[in-house]
């Protein structure tokens, strides 16, 4: 066994590893496992009936559909923002660079009421948009906006270091070979950024699907219209329909595990590609 044959030069492995696994199990693994055990109390058909009930299905649809759309917007907007922050110098660049982290640092409830007030009918942005006949707050569009808000740092902060480290010589090589600027971007730069971009996309998507605080204020929370899955869990809990709440949670958890798996694959892909060559 390799662990035993490998000499351990530093002390404390057994103790720290034991404590790590113990605390991890107590705090994270057992509570999460409880979720699955609780779901097992439902018969498969009852589980299926719960998650395919129209209201549940619609909430899942709203959460996943809008989160996906928001992640798509974040992918494009994030790339453009990263490009501006990394490749150009403009007044206030450092401030805007710092601003990117705000959605992550700002407590979600604060973001929620701020976005709602901003896009409400009489809000700074809501009023001009209302004049154009666009209603944002208390509609699915509002959910979409809130999801864009919370997702943007994920794309920017994943792609930024990769673009910074991207060798300028690659672009020069492409240009010397006769590629136009657009060809260089499309065939050399974007493929080089692809693992990071997809990672950022997956992170933004996953975060938006599970997001609660910044979304519920602006969502309007109309069943079958603008009700997100996490809110439905809360509603079912308040109705003491624990099994229903748990079933929805399990669907979302499984999705999280799939995302984690995809992220690990992406990471692996990025690493095998970046081996040496520099």
């Amino acid at each position: 066994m390799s662990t035993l044959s490998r000499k351990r030069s530093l002390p404390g492995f057994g103790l720290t590893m034991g404590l790590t696994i113990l605390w991890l199990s107590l705090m994270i693994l057992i509570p999460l496992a409880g979720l699955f055990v609780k779901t097992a109390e439902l018969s498969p058909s009852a589980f299926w009936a719960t998650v395919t009930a129209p209201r549940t299905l619609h909430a899942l649809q709203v959460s996943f559909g809008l989160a996906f759309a928001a992640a798509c917007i974040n992918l494009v907007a994030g790339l453009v923002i990263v490009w501006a922050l990394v490749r150009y110098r403009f007044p206030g660049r450092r401030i805007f660079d710092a601003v990117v982290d705000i959605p992550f640092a700002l407590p979600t409830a604060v973001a929620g009421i701020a976005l709602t007030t901003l896009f409400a009918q009489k809000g700074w942005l809501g009023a001009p948009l209302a004049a154009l006949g666009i209603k944002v707050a208390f509609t699915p569009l509002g959910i979409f906006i809130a999801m864009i808000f919370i997702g943007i740092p994920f794309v920017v902060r994943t792609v930024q270091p990769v673009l910074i480290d991207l060798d300028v010589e690659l672009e020069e090589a492409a240009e010397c070979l006769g590629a136009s600027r657009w060809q260089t971007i499309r065939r050399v730069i974007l493929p080089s950024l692809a693992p990071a971009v997809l990672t950022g996309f997956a992170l933004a998507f996953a975060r938006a699907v599970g997001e609660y605080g910044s979304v519920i204020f602006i969502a309007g929370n109309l069943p079958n219209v603008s009700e997100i899955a996490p809110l439905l869990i809360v509603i079912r809990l308040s109705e003491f329909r624990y099994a229903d709440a748990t079933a929805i949670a399990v669907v979302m958890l499984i999705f999280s595990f799939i995302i984690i798996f995809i992220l690990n694959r992406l990471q692996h892909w990025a690493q095998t590609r970046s081996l040496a060559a520099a």
Partner: protein
Amino acid sequence: MTMVATTPLRRSGRDVAVPALDAGAGRRAAHTEPAWVRLVIIGFAIAFLTVFVGLPLILVFSEALSKGIAFYLSALADSEALAAIQLTLIAAGISVGLNLVFGVIAAWAIAKFDFPGKTLLITLIDLPFSVSPVISGLVFVLLFGAQGWFGPWLMAHGVQILFAVPAIVLATTFVTFPFVARELIPLMQEQGQQEEEAAISLGAGGWTTFWRVTLPNIKWGLLYGVLLCNARAMGEFGAVSVVSGHIRGETNTMPLLVEILYNEYQMVAAFAVASLLALLALVTLIAKTVLEGRIEQGLQHHDH
């Protein structure tokens, strides 16, 4: 080793030489775009960040102060607000403390030793980042609720966990679980174990080695992790909302109070409490920027 980034709040790397907005006299450098393209891209970035990120932040302070500073201060001096602030500080203090100790222990085990399943262990530690906050709260309701596993027994013995401070602390700890560990693990891996081995070979014990060699090397990274952990702990909403029970003056943290005040149309009061949280976020971001510089320096120092 594989380490999936599940938090974007990471060091954003060094700067590279880049063309200025007016790319030098005469001809453009080989690797930049025409001026109009650059303007469009910069314009988009500024507009997007301003509208989606900057404006909401400014609005928080503007709304909070919309009825004057006196009104603002009296909203904060309200007994419910003070109780919420106190509870938030207590819950965050305990959670951060627990995660700080766990983070250092886990980082030592993971970064200083090789063992099979390391990647899996890191993935498991990162798990709370991928779980919806509502679900993070739900798991504790299932454990300690009236219908939960331990609920009936606890109730019979007069121990209140759910809808009380213990559940708030548990939910907060769950949500902030990975912060310190995931900041320390890569840092300690990058630093290697030579210094510790040198200390041991000079006769230092394990505890002395950690205290005198490892800790000085990781102190900025540790502070960084604690900072982010604290920001999230104080601001957590979804998970705490599920387990708190919203008992006024007792189990309301600041974010929960923001929700209640907002739903009662006490806008100025809601935004006043929100402004404290926003201020916390800003201070965190500034401190984070300062710390990033320190950590960067520390690592460079290590390379030479």
